[in-house]
């Protein structure tokens, strides 16, 4: 009973914090992008435009809901809801500090990867149910991309698992506190694994240069083409939450989680700093690069990312066997 209560409270907390953080993450992105482009960004609603996310929410809530002719209503309604749910559910196992963790599963990493893999289903649902050709192509691309990039994502996470010998996310952090951050510590391979993980993360969360599923210039808006109002908002928020949680997980696996550099003042704040920095860097990349073509994406994935991450896994196993013992 107590466990259930704790779950409810903590779950509510995560949802609230995450959604709020995402909303202002969007604000941060817009400000950052604006400055990169010699613009000012939102600055009318509230001081520095800080209330812009609220205004956006109000706007989205007021919009009329439109169902395209021939749309599969059930799937059409369900898809945005599922996208957000899966994205948030991933956050349940992320250890934000030694104490602040929803469910410290033994297979935390597996949970994260599994839910990340599931994300493709609602995306495909959205693409299929819209009864729009652009959405359909977007959905097809999303499926192809998610499946392909799931492989290097899993493999690079496997590097961490092999190194640390645990699948529990807090276990991984504890190992890093003991031995040093995985991105730095076996010098070289760790960085490569981190970069690969980061790239796979970009692809999984559909960010430039891997954002072909919703490539605006080609597919109008990809899967979100026909969505209006809050359903569009949910799809949008789902993506941001996905990116946010992905950054948090990258911070946990490779950047030592809540551990401060040289163990200085370890705690929740380091986790927040790392997550926000990674989150911002995703958008820095987004606003700086052009987009690949879908076949180039596949080639990059299968010809480079997958073999390299396989090599890294082998290296990690050898290192574990001979050095760490």
């Amino acid at each position, binding site marked *: 009973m107590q466990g259930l209560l704790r779950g409810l409270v903590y779950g509510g907390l995560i949802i609230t914090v995450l959604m709020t953080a995402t909303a202002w993450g969007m604000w941060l992105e817009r400000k950052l992008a604006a400055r990169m482009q010699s613009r000012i960004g939102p600055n009318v609603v509230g001081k520095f435009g800080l209330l812009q996310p609220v205004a956006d929410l109000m706007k989205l809530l007021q919009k009329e809901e439109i169902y395209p002719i021939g749309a599969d209503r059930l799937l059409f309604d369900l898809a945005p809801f599922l996208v957000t749910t899966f994205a948030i559910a991933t956050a349940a196992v992320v250890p934000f500090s030694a104490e602040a963790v929803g469910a410290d599963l033994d297979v935390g990493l597996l949970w994260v990867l599994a839910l990340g893999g599931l994300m493709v289903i609602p995306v495909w649902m959205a693409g299929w149910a819209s009864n729009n050709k652009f959405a359909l192509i977007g959905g097809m691309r999303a499926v192809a991309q998610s499946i392909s990039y799931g492989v290097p994502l899993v493999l690079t996470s496997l590097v961490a698992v092999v190194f640390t010998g645990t699948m529990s996310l807090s276990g991984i952090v504890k190992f890093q506190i003991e031995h040093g951050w995985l991105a730095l510590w076996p010098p070289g391979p760790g960085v490569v694994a981190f970069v690969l993980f980061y790239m796979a993360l970009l692809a999984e969360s559909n960010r430039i240069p891997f954002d072909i599923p919703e490539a605006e210039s080609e597919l109008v808006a990809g899967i979100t083409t026909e969505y209006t109002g809050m359903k569009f908002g949910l799809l949008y928020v789902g993506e941001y939450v996905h990116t946010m949680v992905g950054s948090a997980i990258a911070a946990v696996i490779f950047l030592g989680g809540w551990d401060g550099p040289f163990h200085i003042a370890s705690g929740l704040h380091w986790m927040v700093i790392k997550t926000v920095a990674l989150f911002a860097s995703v958008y820095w990349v987004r606003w700086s690069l*052009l987009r690949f073509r879908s076949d180039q994406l596949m080639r990059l994935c299968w010809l480079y990312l997958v073999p390299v991450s396989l090599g890294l896994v082998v290296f990690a196993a050898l290192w574990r066997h001979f050095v760490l013992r």
Partner: protein
Amino acid sequence: MNARHPGPTSDRYRLEQMDADADLMVLNFGPQHPSTHGVFRIKLILDGEVVVRAIPYAGYLHRGVEKLLERLTFAQGVPIVDKNDYVAPMTNEQALVMAFEKLLKIEVPRRARWMRTIFAELQRIASHMLWLGTFALDMGGALGGGSGVFIYTFRERDYILDLFEMVTGGRFHYNTHTIGGNRHDIPPGWDREVTKVLDLIESRLPEYEAMSSNNAIFVARTKGVGVIDKELALGLGLTGPILRASGVDFDLRRDAPYHAYDELKVNVATATAGDCQARAQVRVAELRDSIRLVRQGLAGLPEGGINGGKPIKMPQQFKTMTGQAYVGIDTPRGELGTFVVAGGGDKGTAPYRCKIRAPSLHALSALPWILPGHTVSDVVVILGSLDPIMGEVDR
């Protein structure tokens, strides 16, 4: 037409002859689409994501400019054509005005010709800047790096519009050319402003190139995509950067000099590959050459009057009943030709017929040849690399 480009009418692209089970899909690309550069529709017949056949439809922006020019007198016609190629209004005016001058046999003073050269080259810089931005936008999306390049180039283009504004008072509707010369003289101190802007653009050009045309992702997206070979380019009457990117060394500025180009040396940039990357390279090289040309033009700007004819006083002041004239000039998009036949209006005060040869229209006619075999992503890139301006296509 040849092996590489079987042509839209060849059997390979006949729909009736296609496999009935091939699961083809018709995708109407445009007219309301973020990257059709205006209102342009291509009916794409897709096999999966690969284009099997492409049928372009133009005409969504038709405003009857050619008919309008028959109704208006010679004197009134000039401001109308500003809106044809809305990215390079200066060159539109020039093309029309030069044809009228040839028809009416009016000599343009030397200063006006040099000024027109400077305007044309500044306009080329502005136009190519905008093209670079929109091309990156096509590739990087409105919510990505593309929009960064777009806003940078747009920012710099705006400085050039400021320069035009100083001279003409307009940022878009210049109406600064008149039959026989120019309407506005260059204000004092303008050349310093120009030099400042050119220095700025020149110093920032490497930045845009790092983000776009020199970037490995850009190269991956453009190399070998949308190849127009020499034969096809000549066969379709393509001109300008597209023709030069296909390996034909032809530039009206050098080969049939007008304005002051006979006194300036134009370096014609060419490439041989004929793909989107080659077109991008040619345009960027032209951008640099234009900066040099503007500098030279400013240094050599002669003194004198700016109008060889009579300033416009009334609509009927230019009259001719006989003759016809064709003038083609090299705009940022290629050969913009104007063909006028005299004898329209009230006793020959207007053209009987005025035909505008728009380079973009010819560029678009290449689409059915080069699109098949490419994916939907490439369609956007190829369309962007042709730099079509719908206002000019549909007129």
